[in-house]
């Protein structure tokens, strides 16, 4: 007995002595991410987390201002111009920018980056955005001229090399594998190490041309388990967590004395229900889709999963953007109308169907379960099917899922990503259940050719109104993204903006 007491005392003492938890120091900011970046390759990456890390290592070609217009601020260009009906784009590169290995950044590097995205063998998922480039011409070492095959106003939004200008000489020297192991760029932080399964460490780049970072080191730590990440945040083991799930964000915000600060921004993203609209599907009939739209109570869904962290959607482009379609049908809850539509379509007593959500996405599953309850009120018995992510991608793309819960992010500032998949020739069209409306195709083609902003926004309004009448998809809401961070960390107000986003500007952060 005495031995057990002794043993447990020894154990406790060891823990107490060993457990000196080091508090974060001012020269380092630690960022918690749930997913470990698979490979730090700007051409091929798919996960947002890789984008976070590369965002600090590389500099963007061009940025977007608060008002949604393109700008050279914080970008490697001094100025740019668009001529000849938008088919010729000229970039003038700033002089004196250095890569982390000391090489100067020139127009040759920008050209190389464009060519890498165009190279089919490198397998960029963005490859097809670059197929409209007819010619890339160097005008001296610091001017690059792109010529497009035809007017395409969406080009700069989609094909601005994902915000990463790559070092030509370095990559030619070490190869892509070498680059993935030790990526370099011209950004405010340089890569130090990637400890697999644990962290990625970045260090201030002394020769950075832009705003000098006030924090010397950045550490991205991988916490696959969310509750561990939150505890780490609360103890100060990490200082910042981007994109906190809405319910946890609200819980933490309601906890007094947590020592944490909170920030939100709207995002170019919508959450929606997609339908398999192929001919053999019951949702081929627009009246059935309209009935579903009228039966879903979006406010109830938001209250359930997101609280204050979402705005009910009307059309697809978020309301902060001028392309927002104020006139589009939002299908406010109307069960009577829903039942009437079902009757017209020949299903007065409803029918049985399935609604899919990817397993492990708690929020989406809760929402489809709620939708299941809501649809039951008009007689639609929708079975909730959750399948693992890989399977989910397969079954939704192959038309095996009658209804499914999607999330979609679009590039900035041009919201073409929200409407593009409705075009019958789009490669995304079948992925979201096939939609075919010649008028919509025509309008989307016209959007690409219309240079005048106001004219173009009107076309966006029209195309959304038509697609919403058809219920091509049913948009639920636009989310607010919440970042949680150490209250001693100062993040400038202007970064909480859909066109900026704090994590891409760590060099503007400081400790109080």
């Amino acid at each position, binding site marked *: *007995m005495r*031995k*057990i007491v002794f*043993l447990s005392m020894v154990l406790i003492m*060891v*823990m*107490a002595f*060993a*457990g*000196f*938890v*080091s508090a974060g120091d001012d020269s380092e900011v630690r960022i918690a991410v749930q997913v*470990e970046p*698979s*490979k730090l*390759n700007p051409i091929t990456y*798919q996960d947002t987390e890789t984008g976070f890390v590369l965002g600090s290592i590389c500099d963007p070609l061009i940025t977007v201002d608060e008002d949604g217009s393109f700008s050279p601020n914080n970008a490697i260009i001094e100025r740019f111009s668009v001529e000849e009906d938008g088919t010729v784009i000229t970039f003038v590169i700033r002089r004196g920018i250095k890569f982390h290995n000391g090489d100067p950044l020139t127009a040759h590097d920008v050209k190389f980056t464009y060519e890498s995205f165009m190279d*089919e*063998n490198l*397998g960029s*998922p963005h*490859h*097809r955005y670059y197929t409209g480039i007819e010619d890339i011409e160097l005008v001296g070492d610091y001017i690059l001229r792109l010529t497009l095959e035809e007017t395409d106003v969406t080009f700069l939004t989609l094909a601005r090399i994902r915000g990463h200008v790559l070092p030509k000489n370095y990559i030619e020297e070490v190869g892509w*594998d070498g680059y*993935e192991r030790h990526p370099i760029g011209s950004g405010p932080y340089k890569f130090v190490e990637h*400890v*697999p*399964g*644990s*962290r990625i460490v970045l260090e201030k780049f002394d020769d950075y041309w832009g705003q000098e970072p006030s924090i010397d080191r950045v550490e991205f*730590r*991988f*916490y*696959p*388990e969310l*509750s*561990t*990440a939150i*505890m*780490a945040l*609360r*103890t100060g*083991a990490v200082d910042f967590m981007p994109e906190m799930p809405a319910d946890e964000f609200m819980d933490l915000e309601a906890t007094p004395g947590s020592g944490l600060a909170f920030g939100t921004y709207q995002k170019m993203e919508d959450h929606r229900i997609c339908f398999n609209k192929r001919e053999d599907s019951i949702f081929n009939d627009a009246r059935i889709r309209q009935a579903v739209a009228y039966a879903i109570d979006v406010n109830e869904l938001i209250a359930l999963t997101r609280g204050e962290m979402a705005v009910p959607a009307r059309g697809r482009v978020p309301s902060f953007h001028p392309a927002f379609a104020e006139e589009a049908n939002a299908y406010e809850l109307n069960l009577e109308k829903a039942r009437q539509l079902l009757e017209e379509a020949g299903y007065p007593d409803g029918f049985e169907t399935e609604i899919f959500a990817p397993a492990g996405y708690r929020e989406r599953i809760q929402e489809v379960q709620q939708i299941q309850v809501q649809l039951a009120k008009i007689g639609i018995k929708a079975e909730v099917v959750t*399948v*693992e*992510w*890989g*399977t989910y*991608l*397969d*079954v*939704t*793309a192959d038309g095996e899922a009658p209804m499914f819960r999607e999330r979609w992010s679009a590039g900035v500032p041009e919201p073409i990503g929200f409407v593009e998949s409705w075009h019958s020739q789009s*490669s*995304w069209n079948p*992925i979201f259940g096939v939609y075919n409306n010649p008028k919509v195709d025509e309008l989307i083609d016209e959007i690409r050719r219309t240079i005048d902003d106001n004219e173009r926004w009107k076309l966006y309004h029209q195309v959304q109104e038509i697609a919403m009448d058809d219920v091509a998809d049913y948009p639920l809401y636009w989310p607010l993204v919440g970042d949680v961070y150490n209250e001693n960390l100062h993040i400038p107000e202007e970064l909480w903006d859909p066109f900026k986003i704090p994590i891409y500007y760590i060099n503007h952060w400081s400790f109080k």
Partner: protein
Amino acid sequence: MGKSGYVVRRLLRTIPIVIGVTLVTFLILHFTPGDPVRIMLGPYATQENIAILKEQYGLDHPLHIQYITWLGNILQGEFGTSIRYNRPVLELVQDRVGITLMLTLSGLFISVTLGSVLGIFAALRQNSWLDYLCTFQAMFWISIPGFWLAIIFLYIFGLQLRWVPIGGLTGFSSVILPALVIGLQEEAWFARPMRAEMLGVLNEGYISAARAKGVKYIRVVGIHALRNVMIPMITMLALRLPWVIAGSVVVEVVFAWGGMGSLLVNSVLARDFPVVQGILLIIAITVVLANLLADLVYSLIDPRIRVEGGKK
């Protein structure tokens, strides 16, 4: 044939076992829906992109060809390249194997020591409250799901008491909780047999004889009795090894350690066949070798046990 012949034969026998393991995992993985290339490229990939990558990773060949190719490469020591990470599988494993090894060994160490000590105490005080307490606590830990225990421990010792850092491998203090979670969960497997064996041994004649001739009690238990209960303990150790490795997967994820366990989980989710196959192959070999080692250790501890084919 001497001992070495026995070892060689045992080693040869592991080959079909290991091949069987890889074949079964290969089939399970390939018949599970979900395409690694589609997962990697995301929902917005074009058919051409998918086709190019499939060809690159040899995923466009029929299943049996894929398996035979993989097996052939393994025999040449070539574990292939990860689809998700685009790096050699062996390199990925090398980076992480130390972490898993440390977790597994420290967990096993705690469970064996704690289990043995408590088992002996329980046996010496049979049917006392101490005995019941030992049984109760062993059952208590084993009944709690590992991930939940891990989170609760982190909450108490990390968040509330601030004794240990939260997540990551940052020195000795960060090892305690994960090792303790595995140790406590596995402890029952050693405490129970230890108690039962000890009870049996303590009733043996030679124990009474030893005590009668005046050997100190602690020496009787510690040397004479303990030596005789070592065999079942070693068997248990070898038997529990795969479970400890499995348990460390969960613990690694909660404590954000990033060892082989989390690599395995991520790879299964991404259908990263080469990595999953490689890791399972390594685990299978480890388990088979551990069992072989246990058999060999028996004869060291107890000279009465001769390895099969040895001199009688």
